[in-house]
């Protein structure tokens, strides 16, 4: 497989509505931007690639190391950001010693990193989740509206990170409404109706 991930004739039905119908898509290294109006299936497409949305028809091929970051941070309450990231890295079999530096790089100081995630702001939780990109170092990174809730500094850092990942020949798929500057550097822009 030359592509990092692919969907072949993928149909996803949620309730009584087909969100994706017979979609063919190959994800190669570099940046793929997914655009479309609300309800067009951007999130469902990313979830299908991550294996989180079952395909009613069609097939899916996905990189062994795939990171899915949804619109919400995906961190378990009751645990600190550090413990959440250490658990997720250890579960993959990755060393967890990169968690502290990664959180610090995304602006989460040691004191905040050790607090339960429910005591952090939504933006801090999102930044902590984005630090997973640096900890888990996956071949395919799926980002669903990653610029929501983060400040300008973190957004600039995320843009730099996306370019770095593309430079490392990794694949990044981003579902976003804005950030049209991403389109210029993207190797594909997928438009969902």
């Amino acid at each position, binding site marked *: 497989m030359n592509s990092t991930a692919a969907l072949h004739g993928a149909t996803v039905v949620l309730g009584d509505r087909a969100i994706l119908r017979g979609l063919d898509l190959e994800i190669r290294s570099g940046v793929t931007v997914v655009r479309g109006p609300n309800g067009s299936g951007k999130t469902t497409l990313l979830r299908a690639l991550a294996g989180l949305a079952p395909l009613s028809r069609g097939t899916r091929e996905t990189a062994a190391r795939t990171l899915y970051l949804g619109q919400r941070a*995906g961190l378990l309450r*009751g645990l600190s950001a550090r413990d959440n990231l250490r658990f997720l890295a*250890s*579960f993959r079999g990755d060393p967890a010693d990169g968690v502290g530096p990664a959180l610090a790089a995304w602006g989460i100081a040691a004191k905040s990193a050790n607090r339960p995630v429910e005591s952090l702001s939504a933006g801090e939780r999102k930044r902590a989740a984005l630090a997973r990109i640096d900890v888990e170092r996956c071949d395919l990174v799926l980002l669903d509206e990653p610029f929501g809730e983060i400040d300008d500094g973190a957004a600039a850092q995320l843009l730099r990170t996306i370019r770095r990942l593309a430079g490392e020949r990794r694949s990044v798929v981003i579902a976003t409404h804005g950030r049209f500057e991403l389109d210029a550097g993207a190797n594909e822009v997928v438009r969902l109706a």
Partner: protein
Amino acid sequence: MTLHRIRLMAAREARAERGQPDGLVAAVTFVATLILVESLAVGPLAATQPEVASALFWIAMVFAAILATTRSFERELEDDAIDAVLALPGGRDALYVGKALALTALIALVALVGGALSLLLLSLDVLLAGHLALVLVAGVLAQVPVVVLFVVIALRLRSRAALVPILALPVLVPQLVAATNGTAAAISGDAAGALGWAGLLVAFALVYSVLGLTIVPAALE
């Protein structure tokens, strides 16, 4: 599925419950209140009968298990934490087994507190304390896989709070009968009876654990 991943998942659950112990607190409070109210409702004489005391205890435990398990999965749904796990290789299997193990420990703790409270409130004389402990452990082991299974099945439904008891209680009736009879046997000194019921409860635990392992990964998809 590796033991390492199951251990990580169980440790994550235990740590989250320690950080935000609302499931444990709610379950203990619920068990204590229910045992007290039930014993008042049936009257002090009836409540001290081994069969009645055991039934009151296990009815309270079934609801406490549903409460604590539901709360545990509610926490997973907040902020979509469950998606981070399900997207990991082996996440679905480890989620079920790890959660079931951690919740078994938590419900066992609730059973310990509830059991002590029952003995204290009802002034029960236990003739076979070791057998009673065995039945308590087996009863908890038999309950948790069923409750986790039905909480997962109803996980994405808005009416899950109402659906889980409706789905789980009919399936839990045999375990409830076995646990009640085993507990009553241990209290009244029937060693063979207590061991027999405990064995049946362990068999229930094994059957529903295997069933959960088969069904839950698909249900989570």
